[in-house]
Structure formats: C-alpha cells, structure tokens
C-alpha cells in the first residue's frame, strides 16, 4: 500500500508537468487549427516557461513572490494528496487555500488590473465551490468513503448513478481551467481589457512557476474526471484516462466557440447547475444507496 502510494506520488511529481505542458501545447495547436492557422510547435508551452525563467527578476513587493511560492506548494500538495489516495475533502480544501494565496499575491501588488483580476477570481471561486463540494459528497454517498484509495478499489463504475454530478463537474471545469466563457480573472488569449488580470504583476520566474502549477492543477482536476470511471479493472482505467483527456479537448473546443461572459452569468449558471444537477443527483443517491 505504502509502496504504491510512493510510486504514484513520484509519478505525479515527474509526469504531471510533462502531461500538463503537452496538453497545453496540443491545446494551442488545436485552437490554431480551429482558426485555420498553423499554430506554434507542440512544445511551445515549455519554451515559454523556460523563457520566463531566463528573465530578469522583478516584483512590486517582496511579499508577492513568497505568496506565489505558497500557492505553488499547496497546488502540488493537493495533487499529491489526491494521487496518494488521500481524502477528497482535504484535497479540495488544500486547493482552495492555494487559490486563496494566489489571490492574496495579486492583491499584494496593489495594481488595479491585478486587483480586478483577483476580485473576479474570488467570484469565480464562489461560483464553482458548491459544485466541487457536491462532487466530493456524491463520491462519499456512492462509495461510502471520501478516500480516493477506496473509490479506486470499488468494483462498480459510478458514472451512471452520478451522471448529474459528472455533468456539473465538467461544467465547472471551464471555470477552474479559466476558459471562455468563464475566463474572467485572466486569460491566455488576447482579451486585454484587464491587461493580464490576476497575473499582470507576476514577472519572469514567478510567472513561470504559476504556469507550471497550472499544469499540475489541470492534471489533477482531470484526475477527478477519471475517478468517475474507475471500477478496479483495466478497462475502467483505459476509459477513464481517455475520457479525461477528451474532456480537456472539449473544454478547448468550448473555449474557442464562446465569448467571455459576465461574472453574473458565471455565478448564476454554476449555482443553478449545482442545485439542479448536483442536488437532485445527491437526493437520488440518498434514496438508492
């Protein structure tokens, strides 16, 4: 058991940034193809991050980089807890703390653009948090445990009984990945009314660290998608991984076909989804299991 956990922790630490970076590269290629462009090389996100590490150090306050460091540590820690088979609630709250520190880092710069970005990120958190919690509760109601280890060990696939929660989770992934229509706080595209929003004041290696932790975060959020398919057999693993990767590209597709919405819409839509799909599904689980 412990050996298994250690192996998956090491695999996560090494592979997650590679997979996350590759997914980001494929994403940019796919976006380019959708716009009938050639697009950058698939390894471009890695070049970008290496470049950021080559840049001069610069920060508006000396605390900013410290907060960002805490953000990075907590993002990686939440992934570690997840892949080591830990408690889903702990994973979720660790990730929440990480995001909170990113927001504090943005506020600490005192820059108007970063502040607006930070405020929008807070609103986004408020929008997706209920569904995240309902997802964890759903897993508990079906499997009788919050532990990822136990969920993986179960011999039934929980996709169908948790279909509503699955759809809700996919919906809030758009918020979590900060993709259009919900790329409120920052964006990789040329929406420049906020300059770069949340990340406006992060320079050079600080920005590089943030990119890397987004790769970690993306991989482990896709890990949640995988959990819906795990049923203890090899087929469950294959289907889970394929669907998780497909999910990412569906998000890219949505990203490219929608304009940015206002935060009010993001808020209403995700709460309605959480209440209708999430709550009803939980109620059904309560009646049946």
């Amino acid at each position, binding site marked *: 058991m412990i050996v298994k956990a250690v192996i998956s922790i090491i695999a996560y630490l090494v592979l997650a940034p590679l997979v996350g970076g590759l997914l980001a590269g494929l994403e*940019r290629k796919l976006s380019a193809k959708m716009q*009938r*462009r050639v697009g950058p090389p698939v390894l471009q996100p890695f070049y*970008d991050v*290496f*470049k950021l590490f080559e*840049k001069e150090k610069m920060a508006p306050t000396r605390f900013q980089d410290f907060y960002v460091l805490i953000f990075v540590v907590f993002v990686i820690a939440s992934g570690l807890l997840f892949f080591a088979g830990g408690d889903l609630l702990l994973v979720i709250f660790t990730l929440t703390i990480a995001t909170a520190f990113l927001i504090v880092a943005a506020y600490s710069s005192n820059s108007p653009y970063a502040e607006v970005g930070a405020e929008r990120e807070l609103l986004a958190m408020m929008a997706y948090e209920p569904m995240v919690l309902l997802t964890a509760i759903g897993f508990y109601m079906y499997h009788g445990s919050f532990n990822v280890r136990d969920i993986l060990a179960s011999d039934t696939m929980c996709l169908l009984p948790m279909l509503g929660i699955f759809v809700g989770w996919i919906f809030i992934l758009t918020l979590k990945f900060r993709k259009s229509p919900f790329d409120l706080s920052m964006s990789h595209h*040329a929406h*420049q009314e906020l300059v770069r929003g949340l990340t406006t004041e*992060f320079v050079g290696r600080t920005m590089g660290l943030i990119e890397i932790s987004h790769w970690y975060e993306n991989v482990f959020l896709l890990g949640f998608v995988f959990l819906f398919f795990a049923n203890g057999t090899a087929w469950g693993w294959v289907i889970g991984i394929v669907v998780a990767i497909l999910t990412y590209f569906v998000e890219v597709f949505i990203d490219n076909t929608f304009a940015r919405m206002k935060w009010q819409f993001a808020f209403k839509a995700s709460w309605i989804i959480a209440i209708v799909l999430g709550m009803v599904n939980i109620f059904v689980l309560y009646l049946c299991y």
Partner: protein
Amino acid sequence: MSAYVTKSPWVVHYDGSSCNGCDIEVLACLTPMYDVERFGIINCGNPKHADVFLVTGSVNEQNKGIVKQIYEQMPEPKVVVAVGICACSGGIFKDCYNVLGGVDQVIPVDAYVPGCAARPEAIIDAVVKGLGVLQAKRDAMLEQKPAEEAPAEEAVEETAEAVEEVKEEGGEE
C-alpha cells in the same frame, strides 16, 4: 546555446501618434494569413510579460512618458522595434509642433521597420531580427556585463534564413 527567449518572444504593442495604418498591419501579423504564433510570438499586452516592444507612430510631448514607462516596466532581456516611418523618424508628422521625432528620441531602439504603412512581412522580419539582439542581451546578462552594440551575428543569420523560408512559402500561394 540559443536562449529560449528567441523561441517565445512575447510582444507588447503601443500606438504612439500613428495614423493607425501601422497598427492595423501589426494586428495583421496575428491573423491566420501571417500567423506569427508559429514562431511562438504572442501579443500579450502586458509590458511585464513582454520581450519585444513594438511602437508605431512618433513620440510627442504627451506620450513620451508613457513610452518610457512601458520600456522600464519590461524585464530584461528586451528589444524595441520601431514600426513604420513615423516611429523611425517622425515621418510625415515630423514638423508638427508637438512631435519629438522617432521613438529613439526617448528609448533605445534595436530594429527599425521603414514603410508607410510597414508591411506585415517587414514587421515579422524586424521582430525576428530583434531575436538576435535578445540572444545577445541574454548572453550579456549571463556574463553580467552590459550588452554589446552588435547583435550575435549567427543568430541574426539563422533567423534571417527562417524569414526567407516563410516568405518563399507565402509567395507560392
């Protein structure tokens, strides 16, 4: 070793007192027709993330502070490209009472793109030339000494070849 900065030059674009002609051409570089993202070039709109500063139009009394500020906010290594004859020398607006002249009146410029309006091919060419300067500045940063005037010859040649290829490809269509 070639620095990664030459593989992922992010651009910030500032419109001085241009007639907007050159701005449209800068934006044309981002369209599917020219698609500069295949060189890793992104228009990031944030001086703190940018490596290349594209200025269109001349500097005047009102915007010289802004141009300086954007330049100072960019972390090293960085290059400045003056796009269009207005940005090079003041161009048609040179004799206006409030115009100071080209961008090099307030900040050091590394590449000049003549033309009114500058053609997208020429702008891409200039940015790619600027990569040689970026490389030289990066090397200088590593050696902890001020950047030399002349950009690393090799890098310029290499990138010039790349541009030639692109031009040929464009010509075939």
